């Protein structure tokens, strides 16, 4: 396991804050993730060892600020962790990224409300894993539409908390999470885009599994379909509307963390392809100049450097979740980070495969690239790039990204 290297340093340099020491180091959990990656992929099981190691190292609560009882890590710290873990195991990296994106929403929008603040303190103490329930039968991957809405309890019900029922098409690690952030319409008569985010604790909901997760890749995220049945008090609905949470925090933070983990997967693929090319050259005794495969390694690296530059720029433009600066990052820019990095990393691993040749095409051995390619094929699909590009196109006539402003 090599260290995260350049990306980590670049991002650390970008980050103005982040001087407070974080509890454990990421190298240990990242090595655990790498050691179990093959089994997680083959068996399609949750990366329990990696998540336990992250919990033990105190990394799951890292985005919670000191004022809320946490270590006060920066978004760049979280990106670095996602990169390092995904370099060993893409599924574990995705679980970590989804968890951090949900935690960021709570941190940025808890305000003075007691319930989310208490949850955050408990989450830091116990290393609780938070899952996301935005997808729903009938709306596809569109974050900004919900069908479900809270129904008031019957007048004679001793439990006066509202009923929530959501038919979720995917909840990553739903069966392994301690709590959920669930989007719903504000009320039974509200428009589909008038949404509220509910924080549901371990005792507030039951899950009925309605679909499995037999997928090509990202097999360890266990993003199964569930019907969520919950009872929740009014204090469990975040006071900021989901429209603002989605635009200001959930979407940008998710795309920034995803970019980190996708680059992590591709970085490991590049290491493997390079080792395969070097191994062959050593056997033939040839020179590095003009060696077969090296142009492809260069092409892959070029794409990954571009992806890293986009990510570093997005981090600089966005700042920290909840900051005034974060609220003004233009949605089209957030979209373009996602569409560009998802395709650049996938393309880079394709170049790696060509460089490695059969050593990479084999599904066994130290140079195998199958898992990396299969995991990364989720990137353009999870929130479909075509849908995101359609939204970006509309935004070209409105708040488009500002060229030159951050040069």
């Amino acid at each position, binding site marked *: 396991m090599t260290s995260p290297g350049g990306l980590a340093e670049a991002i650390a340099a970008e980050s103005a804050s982040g001087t407070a020491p974080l509890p454990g180091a990421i190298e240990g959990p990242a090595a655990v993730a790498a050691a179990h990656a093959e089994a997680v992929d083959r068996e399609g099981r949750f990366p329990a060892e990696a998540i336990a190691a992250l919990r033990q190292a105190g990394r799951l609560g890292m985005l919670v600020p000191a004022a809320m009882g946490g270590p006060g890590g920066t978004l760049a710290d979280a990106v670095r962790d996602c990169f390092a873990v995904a370099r060993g195991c893409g599924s574990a990296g995705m679980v970590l990224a989804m968890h951090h994106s949900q935690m960021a929403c709570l941190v940025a929008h808890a305000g003075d409300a007691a319930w989310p603040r208490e949850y955050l303190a408990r989450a830091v103490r116990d290393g609780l894993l938070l899952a996301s329930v935005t997808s729903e039968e009938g709306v596809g991957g569109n974050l900004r539409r919900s069908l479900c809405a809270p129904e008031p309890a019957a007048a004679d019900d001793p439990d006066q908390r509202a009923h929530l029922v959501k038919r979720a098409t995917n909840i990553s690690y739903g069966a392994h999470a301690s709590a959920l952030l669930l989007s719903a319409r504000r009320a039974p008569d509200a428009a589909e885009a008038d949404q509220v985010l509910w924080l549901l604790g371990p005792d507030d909901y039951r899950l009925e599994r309605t679909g499995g997760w037999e997928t090509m890749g990202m097999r360890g995220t266990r993003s199964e379909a569930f019907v969520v049945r919950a009872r929740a008090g009014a204090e469990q609905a975040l006071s900021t509307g989901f*429209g603002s949470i989605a635009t200001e925090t959930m979407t940008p933070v998710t795309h920034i963390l995803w970019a980190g983990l996708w680059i992590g997967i591709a970085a490991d693929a590049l290491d493997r392809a390079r080792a395969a090319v070097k191994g062959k050259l050593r056997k033939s005794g040839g020179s590095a100049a003009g060696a077969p495969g090296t142009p492809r390694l260069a092409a892959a690296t070029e794409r990954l450097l571009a992806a890293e530059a986009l990510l570093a720029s997005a981090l600089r433009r966005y700042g920290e979740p909840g900051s005034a600066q974060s*609220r*003004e990052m233009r949605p089209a820019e957030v979209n373009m980070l996602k569409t560009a990095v998802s395709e650049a990393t996938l393309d880079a691993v394709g170049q790696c495969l060509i460089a490695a040749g059969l050593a990479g095409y084999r599904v066994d051995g130290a140079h195998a690239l199958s898992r990396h390619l299969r995991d990364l094929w989720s990137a353009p699909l999870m929130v479909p790039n075509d849908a995101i590009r359609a939204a970006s196109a509309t*935004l070209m006539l409105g708040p488009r990204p500002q060229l030159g402003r951050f040069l």
Partner: protein
Amino acid sequence: MTGIETAVRDALASRARLSTDAKAIGAEDDLFDRGLTSLMTVDVMLALEARFDLEFPEEALTRNSFRSVASLRDLLVSLGAAA
């Protein structure tokens, strides 16, 4: 209610799908909490630009500009809109 504010409400009613009737919404109410999305703001902007024959400058294309009926009204006034 000023003519400019009425025009803002008309644009919201015809170009955005909100939970609350745009005619009845509080001037300071957060429109993003009523279902306004970034995509809808583009059409609201186009309608207001056509109505007042002006152009929203790049710096004005922020979420804060579109946050409420009042913020849109103030922006239009600052751009010299005449009802």
